[in-house]
């Protein structure tokens, strides 16, 4: 069992989830409430990782952040090292690839909040900002929580994008799913099996929690 890989995986997943919460909540609220006619284009972009092979996203990310691109050079000049093959690199990949897993449940949760609740708060002289925190977010909480859990779970299992942009550097970019691949290549089936079992058990537990939340079995 590669404990370093397990800890790295948990870090990537946790950081991606937090970043996606900060980016995803406003984006989802905007998608749920705007009447802008071209919003379907943004929805399509957000949903892209659902259908795109992870290698495609990883490939373009590698090109975009590599030393030949202005963005890559700018990053290297400011931070001191290149984005690919670093923790930052796999984090960016993970965030982009998990965007739909956060934004789609968040958007559905906000859209399910009765518009009149929001209008009622406005008519009670409560500002739009305060209405979001006092009415919309509490009423959409179950959906937001589902989004957070799914994002975290999916980020834990990410393979293709991470491999493309992060490679397979022990302690730096080798996550659990890459470690499994590595162990199978080296014919170490026992370790691969242990690591795979951890991911399987984790995924099953997480999905059980999500469905229990939706059925309101768990008191939340």
């Amino acid at each position, binding site marked *: 069992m590669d404990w370093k890989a397990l800890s790295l995986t948990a870090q990537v997943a946790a950081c991606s989830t937090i970043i996606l919460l900060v980016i995803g909540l406003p984006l989802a609220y905007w998608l749920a409430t705007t009447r802008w006619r071209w919003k379907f284009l943004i929805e399509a972009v957000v949903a892209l990782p659902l259908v795109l092979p992870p290698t495609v996203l990883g490939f373009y990310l590698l090109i975009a952040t590599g030393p030949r691109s202005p963005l890559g050079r700018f990053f290297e000049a400011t931070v001191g090292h290149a984005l690919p093959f670093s923790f930052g690199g796999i984090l960016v990949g993970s965030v982009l690839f998990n965007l739909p897993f956060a934004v789609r449940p968040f958007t559905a949760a906000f859209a399910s909040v*009765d518009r*009149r*609740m929001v*209008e*009622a*708060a*406005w*008519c*009670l*002289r*409560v*500002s739009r900002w*305060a209405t979001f925190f*006092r*009415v919309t977010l*509490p*009423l959409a909480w179950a959906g937001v929580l589902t989004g957070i859990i799914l994002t975290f779970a999916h980020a834990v299992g990410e393979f293709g994008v991470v491999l493309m942009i992060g490679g397979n550097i022990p302690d730096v970019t080798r996550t659990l799913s890459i470690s499994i691949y590595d162990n199978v290549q080296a014919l170490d089936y026992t370790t691969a099996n242990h690591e795979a079992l951890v991911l399987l058990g984790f995924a099953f537990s997480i999905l059980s929690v999500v469905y229990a939340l939706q059925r309101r079995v768990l008191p939340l």
Partner: protein
Amino acid sequence: MNTLDIAIEKRYSANVCIRASLSLPAGGFSVTALLGPSGCGKTTTLRALAGLEFPERGRIALGGRVWLDTERQICLPPQQRGIGFLFQDYALFPHLTVERNIGFGLSGVSATERRKRVAEILELLQLSGLENRYPRQLSGGEQQRVALARSVVTQPELLLLDEPLSALDTLTREQVRRELRHFLAKIGKPTILVTHDRVEALALADHIVVMSAGTVLQSAPVEEVFSHPASSEVARIVGVETVETGVVGAVSEGLATVEIGGQRLTAVATPDLVTGQRVYVCIRAEDVILQKGYEGFSSPRNRLQALVRSQTREGPLIRVALDCGFQLVAVITSPAVSELKLRDGDQVTALVKAPSIHLVARK
């Protein structure tokens, strides 16, 4: 005297356009009903008043304060208009208790002051004891009063009610209809409500605005709209009807006598009726039977000596205006008019059965 001036225009498509222009009393307590069929623009008008709907052109002003003026690009958000809005299905916050629902808009005041004001309004609307319940644990009538309490606790200048009774079941609706005006009077604010139900308008309002297909057809006191509809369109919407104020006399064995214009009528009593109470006496024009010269026995309880004032043709029917101490309207067919040899100034007997006289109590 403050007035609320509204002139708005909102276009939905090439042939659906709402153009409402009104001036309503908004000084002390008064209830105005926007009455009309579904889709006539009454709810849009109400929502435009609240700042929840944005007309393309128009102006809304309460007293000297301009809420909307598209020419000067003024459009106050709902937060700055000083209104209370009661939503059709109340829109109570399901995650908050009754107390926190009502206190929701009082975030700017101290906790002590908030508790005091919530307690006062709970007392006023007979909700004391329900503070810690959640909306789902309340009956329909209680939910409505909690929503009303929530919308008035912030002391708005104008109260807006969107179909206040439509979310209730039939039995509760009758009871709440009787109580609601009483509560509105206690609150004492100028109130505008939207309804498609003429009985609701009668029971609750002082002033009725009849709307159809996006325009205002008539804006007048209740009696005038029902007794003197401005057009046949208004008559069709409100139903041709005599609506006069009467005073309840004796009530016994399910029947009540009502004094109106020097006449005494017998009507079927509603359960809450008491002697001396003022009521609206409503008689539909098609329920009035006219007789000439015949004085024998007939079953209707009410036989009124009446003078024919005028006759108006409405398709195959003739609308006959009668004076029998109060203004009474009858609708009969044109063959019946010829058989009766009815002419203006004739003396006739108007017969009305007791169950055809509807009494609408006003608290």
